[in-house]
């Protein structure tokens, strides 16, 4: 699927590099890299990642460049973005 895209770049997730193809959201890049949960819930400490994929459910909240909380499924990834998970 990736041949339609241009030059890939990287973001880091807890310091670890994750490849991105331009136009992808942070959530999509994480999911593609096999990172499917990146936060835990307040009460039960349950793992959460993408669910609705379109900005409705708020399961995918994530800290990017120190600024929480963003919806990873809406946020376009940019070169050098630093994602920290909790």
């Amino acid at each position, binding site marked *: 699927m990736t041949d339609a895209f241009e030059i890939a770049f990287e973001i880091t997730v807890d310091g670890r590099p994750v490849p991105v193809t*331009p136009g992808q959201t942070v959530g999509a890049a994480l999911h593609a890299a096999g990172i499917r949960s990146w936060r835990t819930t307040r009460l039960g400490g349950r793992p959460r990642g993408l669910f609705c994929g379109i900005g409705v459910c708020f399961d995918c909240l994530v800290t990017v460049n120190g600024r929480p909380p963003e919806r990873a499924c809406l946020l376009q990834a940019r070169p050098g973005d630093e994602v920290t998970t909790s």
Partner: protein
Amino acid sequence: MTGRYDLAVVGGGPAGVAGALTAALAGLSVVLVDSGARLGGQYFRHPAGAHPGTPGLDRFLRQSRALADRADLLLGHQAWAVEHTAAEHDGGFTLRCTAPDGSPVAVASRRLLIATGAHDRPLPFPGWDLPGVLTAGGAQALLKGNGVVAGRRIVVAGTGPFLLPVATGLAGAGADVLGVFEAGGGLGLARHPLLAAGKAGEAAGYALALARHRVPYRTRQAVVAAHGERELEAVTVARLDRDWNVLSTRRVACDTLATGYGFVPQIDLGVQLGCRTRADPDGSPVLVVDARQRTSVPGVWAAGEPAGVGGRELAELEGRIAGRTISAEHDPVPGAPARRRERLRAFARALLEAYPIRPGWQRWLRDDTLVCRCEEVPLARVREARELGATDARSVKLLSRAGMGWCQGRVCGHAVACLTGVPVTQPRRPLAQPVTLGALAALTDTHDPAGAQHPAGSQDPTGPREPAGGQAGSRAGDRNSSAASTTDGKDSA
């Protein structure tokens, strides 16, 4: 005088783009607001620069380019509230938005077109909050918008014709799709309701694609539980009776589940303005519109899914009718489009009626099954609220906290209503999207159509563009939510 647009359109899917373009071609000054980084909405979601073979995409992209030449596009902007403007301007509306950099933007217009689409309606079941469980639309958005196949071994389950493009899309992209489990209908693909609606070609295409990839399509079967430690490892697939009670079960190992039970139209902005609503055949509240797509509130039109889920062809047609009647309010609605709209609406109703949600799903849940994912409310607590005497959606919510979290009941609303036996009511959300306290505090700065902040037409609408009035370094899709918005602040309904 601050500038006012003749028309503000919320939603850049097929309905919004068709409506905005039609009105702009008729000479109206138009602004279109969409939260996405690109025009497209749910169906025409496409990655930057890539043109996957979505039927109709080329045509949509032509419309988008034409629109960019004639209207202002505020992409990456979330509309979170709309209000009537003070009477001095013969009515009109102020749309409150959040720009990609988080700053507030107000848009004034004489007329408003609501084309905000819909989102998936999931049903809860044990384990549905495990990572690896996605909505069917979510899996589709990953694939169409991001080129990401949601997993390797995927189960597709739920009800409705939308499961078919999701399953064939995933299989075509290389995933091992282990099965499509359609909880409704006992007929199978050979007699799918798409056939009755004159969509034989479409149905045959899906049947062929599924056969080619050896994907079984099973009716009266559903995923009733998901299993795994920290991620999805397996699902329980059940055979169901007519009412969706479980007859027998088996376990299927998989890493991904794509599930959906229809769609929920996004009607918050219409409800904020007091537009009348009605229940669609599947119980979803939708905005009432007349043959011109006018809502019950003067100056407000609705097209596409907020007026009832009906697919992209109907959405585009309704957008065109809206655009036309907005620009020439006293013209009769042209005959051919009106007749085609009626045909497509009848088809949409037939599909909704063919795939009802049957009550047996409620017995798939256990006491500790989370019903509300945001506030982590289990079934037992929802039942307790009912036992404590809650007889309407609002009291159930207050007593159980179901629907009080980030998503404001968008995900669990339908299920909670069914589980407590109260009718699905129209949402009452004073804010359609989370918003920062800073943005609330700075309710100024009306977006001016005459202003030079965002020359229209200078950029390719299909590529990411710098948002209007945005500062250097801001980006579409950025800062859509914010730490400063609180759950309580959003819940003053």
